[in-house]
């Protein structure tokens, strides 16, 4: 799948970075490390209850990083969009599909790509929110970020 190619990965990375810039700019300083960590654990880690080691803090996870959640959301959304574009344009070549997907996320892209329908938009928003919840974000954060991500699509 295109998303797994270096080009696709770079695309996910850039979109994730934009989302992080919007919601957790303080993480940009260590975005690259967080993104590579996400690539190693793309399904997310179970929330930590605190290790209970002797002379540890016993507190475990105090604050959830936004970057892995944002990256997971972007990955899920792009995968969805790619599959939807594929369904709609089965006779077209991969290069064309790729540029269509890219243009969907790029308001300045030349040529008008087919926008997603309101039902698809709702579906993709729910999907993104679910991924955010999987990565330990609060329901409110998940909703805000998923709306922002879908908003970048509906800008078309």
């Amino acid at each position, binding site marked *: 799948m295109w998303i797994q190619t270096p080009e696709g990965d770079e695309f996910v990375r850039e979109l994730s970075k934009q989302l992080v810039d919007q919601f957790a700019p*303080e993480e940009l300083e260590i975005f690259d490390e967080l993104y590579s*960590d996400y690539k190693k654990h793309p399904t997310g880690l179970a929330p930590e209850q605190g290790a209970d080691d002797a002379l540890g803090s016993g507190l475990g996870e105090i604050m959830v990083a936004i970057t892995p959640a944002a990256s997971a959301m972007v990955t899920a959304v792009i995968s969805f969009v790619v599959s939807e574009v594929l369904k709609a344009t089965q006779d077209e070549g991969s290069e064309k599909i790729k540029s269509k997907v890219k243009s969907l996320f790029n308001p300045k892209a030349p040529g008008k790509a087919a926008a997603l329908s309101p039902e698809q938009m709702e579906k993709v928003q729910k999907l993104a929110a679910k991924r955010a919840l999987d990565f330990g974000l609060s329901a409110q954060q998940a909703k805000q970020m998923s709306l922002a991500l879908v908003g970048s699509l509906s800008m078309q």
Partner: protein
Amino acid sequence: VEANRPPEGKLNPFALPTETDARFLLLMISALAVAFLLSDPLRYILDPNAINPYAALPPAPGDIPVDEFFQAQVKYGMQLMLASISALILPLFLIGMTFLLAAVLYWDHPRRIRRRKVTVPLSSQSDPRFEQELAALSTQAGLQGLPNIELGKNLAVQDGQAFGVGRKKSLYLDGGLRILLRKSVENFRAIVRHELAHIVNRDIDKTYFAQSLWTAVLIVTILPLVVLVMYFFVSSTYLKIVDGLTSAELQEILFIKFPSFIGFVLPSIGLIILILLTRAGLLRTREFYADWRAALWGSASTLASIFELQSRRRKTGLNPLRLHPSPAERLNTLKKPDLLFGVSADVPFVVGVFTSSILNGLIPIFLTMMITVPPGIIALNSSLVDYARLHPEVPLTFFRPFIYGLLAVTNLVNLILALMPFLILAPLAASTIGLQVQRQALADLAGRNGGIRPYLSLVVPALWMGLGMVVGVFLSPLAILAPDSLASSIFAMICLVLFILLIWLVLVYTRFIGGRLLGSHAKLTRPDGKNRLLSVLIAILFFSIEMPLVAAVFLDKTAAPDMLQALLVLAALALGMFLLIGGTFAFHWIVFHVYRLIRPVKCPSCGQISSESAVVSRNCQRCGKNMVPWLYVTH
């Protein structure tokens, strides 16, 4: 009105030392006692011929001619000493091995933590902001330089762990703390301060060494013995079953072997569980103190909000083996430090258990040593006497100092060896339960909780300690203090009741004198000297109770005297102890009043003499400032 207004702030948890230090020591000494106690059956199993090292001894010199008497005395003393040494070889060897293994495990713990956590050392300039913040926090904690920082790779968690050997300790910090620094610097500081507090509170060496020592005891003595006992039980039973069991053999298995086996294995399991529970309870208490230290460094509100959030997020069930208190407990203790000034049930119980188990282990050690060292000295003395007898040309005055000196040394060594277990245990009891009562007395003065009721309620810790003593006797493998007949059981029960009553009186004394002595300490600094003095006095009282009563139980069991005679001796002992405690009470009360007449309480700020001697929760009648600032903190 101003003077009666309670001072601002909360109780300072560090106003007096904590009892946990002594509890760690109890945990460690009990490890050695158990190791020694268990090494004896190992000796029997490994070398069945060595069952009785004294069997081959000649009879003690009796009605033999003077010419031969001293030679026989020397021979007997030397043989007795060698026999005792042979009985000590394996236990001492095993204790040596235990210490060696404990030292190795302790020295190796940093490597094990690094390997388990897959850490990488924080490299210079890899994250300057992180490094700068850590350096600033270490300086605030009063550390000489930054501890060794080991970073974890997991960026999703923000935990830490303090560890290390030697002067420079190490801090393991999860990778997630680097994110936390960027997202919430106060949360970051709270976690790191908590870990630094473990270093400053000197938790590291005690925690890891106590853990290493018990692991070593488990590996060197408990496990080999359990395995050997199981092997002998199973193999002998199996062989008999294979050969066909006779009725007598079945009875032997069911009523002798199996109960003996269970009677050995169950206490061992119980002891291990108790050690784990004690360790967990100790570490949980140390966590409260680490939280409080971090709070005093400026993380009080942050820690409170973290605990509040976590207590809402996760409900922790009751797990007595957890090494950390629940977030709700931590929040509660942060809000109410008075909780660290109470007398809990677990401390007197644990002190009781360890007192028994240590006595069970130490009494045989010191008895064996008493049979080892003094006979050697007596043999030397006898040879001197014999030499003097055979050489009349040498004046007797030349030998006399040596002979009397050696006899004095013998008696002194005997006395020290007999008292040694109690000389070790009494200060530890004073530094645990005694210290808790001192802390509670202060907290009650601060909370103006007076009257007779707190004194009466001290019977509860006394009961817990008594119960702990009983449990400790039965949890000690080869319980030498456990009564073995109805008469000795009745006698032991009477001793126990007397013990509880006397311990209660000592606790009442501690509260009464402690409250007056510490409660009149109107200084800027902690009353360390007064606290030490009190601990010594309480230790003497504990010693005066424990030593005669334990000796009574032991002698009653071994010598089996006439019941009435034993009870009369016990009554005389009890009378003596009541008089001692009462006399001490009255004498110290008078001394205290005289002391305060000579040195009245003065305000530490303006020097105004106070009309009251108990000035906790009082402000100066002239300047209005807190009379005991060392007892309060504001954050």
